[in-house]
């Protein structure tokens, strides 16, 4: 098995119905830096994306025919990728260096993420790259309020593109942005104006691209710290709370901070047990750990049941060398979670 960072990254583009996924994808595919990408789309959309693809992408394109990518054809996704991979190996299609999978608007992106990470064949060739979620600047707030899928899509995102910002009301946009930031403090926000978005920025390498060497980590830690600073007045020591007052929402994010170095073995036992029991409720787990006996900070990154392999950063991104773990959860007791990890860690505390 190749090292994780050398596998082909798969970008997932998701977003609620009418939020501009296809427009974004069209825009992205015209960008020269995506010439080396294979694209998997659904025919569920009503925009003429497939025409564009047939013209421009030629054999790099496989159209999935089953409609909803997540609910009905996880197996199709697997088969499509494996088939495409075989063609790539045989030289029947160009040796693409990345892949983009577009979900339907009603899709929960988790099954796709799970398929990529759990299938025995796929996981030896591909890895999850960045999850990009489009949110409608005009109707996004309503979708988040009414549709669980929309909340889920925003929660698991690495990048959130707010679309139609040129026609949306400024106050409404600000409220939407604030809501999304509370929901997913580690996501990077981009704005699409008249369908235009900074594609290069959007596709900037993810956590596991060696070229960027942790720039992504610095970005989301900085975002987290900024938000933590805002919340200090309202939270106790070591606990940054978000969204606690939103009566109608169970999904919220918070950061647990541990002053003492963590025991890696105990942490592995704890996280696998947690994801086994509560994986569906753990939408994101992202963190930088100070691991006992190891100088380099260890990066952890999980989406529901899936955990990316941990990775060392060369150095701490700032002077704060405490372990910091950001959780985005659905109805999980924060205090209990914090106490639980501390208890597991304590059992290993006397290790040499």
């Amino acid at each position, binding site marked *: *098995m*190749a*090292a*994780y*960072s050398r596998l082909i990254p798969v970008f997932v583009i998701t977003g609620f119905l009418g939020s501009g996924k296809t427009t974004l994808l069209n825009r992205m595919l015209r960008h020269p830096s995506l010439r080396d990408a294979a694209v998997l789309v659904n025919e569920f959309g009503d925009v003429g994306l497939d025409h564009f693809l047939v013209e421009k992408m030629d054999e790099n394109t496989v159209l999935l025919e089953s409609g909803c990518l997540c609910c009905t054809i996880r197996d199709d996704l697997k088969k499509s990728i494996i088939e495409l991979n075989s063609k790539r190996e045989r030289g029947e299609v160009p040796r693409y260096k990345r892949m983009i999978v577009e979900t339907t608007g009603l899709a929960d992106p988790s099954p796709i993420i799970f398929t990529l990470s759990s299938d*025995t064949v796929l996981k030896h060739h591909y890895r999850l790259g960045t999850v990009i979620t489009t949110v409608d600047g005009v109707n996004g707030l309503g979708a988040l309020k009414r549709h669980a899928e929309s909340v889920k899509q925003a929660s698991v995102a690495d990048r959130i593109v707010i679309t139609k910002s040129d026609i949306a009301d400024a106050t409404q946009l600000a409220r939407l942005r604030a809501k999304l930031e509370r929901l997913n403090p580690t996501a990077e926000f981009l704005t699409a104006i008249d369908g235009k978005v900074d594609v290069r920025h959007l596709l900037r390498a993810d956590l*596991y691209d*060696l070229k960027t060497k942790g720039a992504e980590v610095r970005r989301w830690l900085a975002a987290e710290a900024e938000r933590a600073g805002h919340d200090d007045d309202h939270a106790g020591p070591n606990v940054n709370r978000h969204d606690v007052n939103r009566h109608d929402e169970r999904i919220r994010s918070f950061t647990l901070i541990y002053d003492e170095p963590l025991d*890696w*073995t*105990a942490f*592995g*036992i*704890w996280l*696998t*047990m*947690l*994801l*086994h*029991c*509560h994986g569906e409720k753990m939408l994101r787990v992202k963190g930088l750990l100070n*691991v006992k006996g*190891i100088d*380099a900070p*260890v*990066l952890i990154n999980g989406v529901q049941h899936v*955990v*990316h*392999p*941990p*990775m*060392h950063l060369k150095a701490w991104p700032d002077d704060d060398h405490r372990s910091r773990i950001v959780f985005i959860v659905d109805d*999980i*007791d924060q205090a*209990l*979670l914090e*106490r*639980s990890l501390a*208890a*597991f860690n*304590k*059992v*290993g*505390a*006397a*290790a*040499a």
Partner: protein
Amino acid sequence: MCALCGALMDGPHWTERGTDAGRADAALPGRRRYLERCYRVALLNRVLARYGCTADDWAGNQYVVRNRSGGATEVVTNLPQLWLALEAITRKTADPLDPELIARLEKAPPVTH
């Protein structure tokens, strides 16, 4: 696949590939891996005590989970499988947020290695 027992081997789980699994695909080397595994089993047994079960290492790449009477035994290759096996044996939920488990761990003596 293991030629003796027919178990499918799926490469080391991220918990067993050291802390830098994102850059290196190999498992920990020999003795370090063995010591780490002994330590993991000792820690696991602190947790499994809550459920009246124990875990042992088998051949350095599998775990044997059993209840106290030894009447129920499962062989697994990684931690996610171990939690499933524990639930199959005990018919209890393996929940790290269980207050009783947390209280037990808070009182448990630390493992040394």
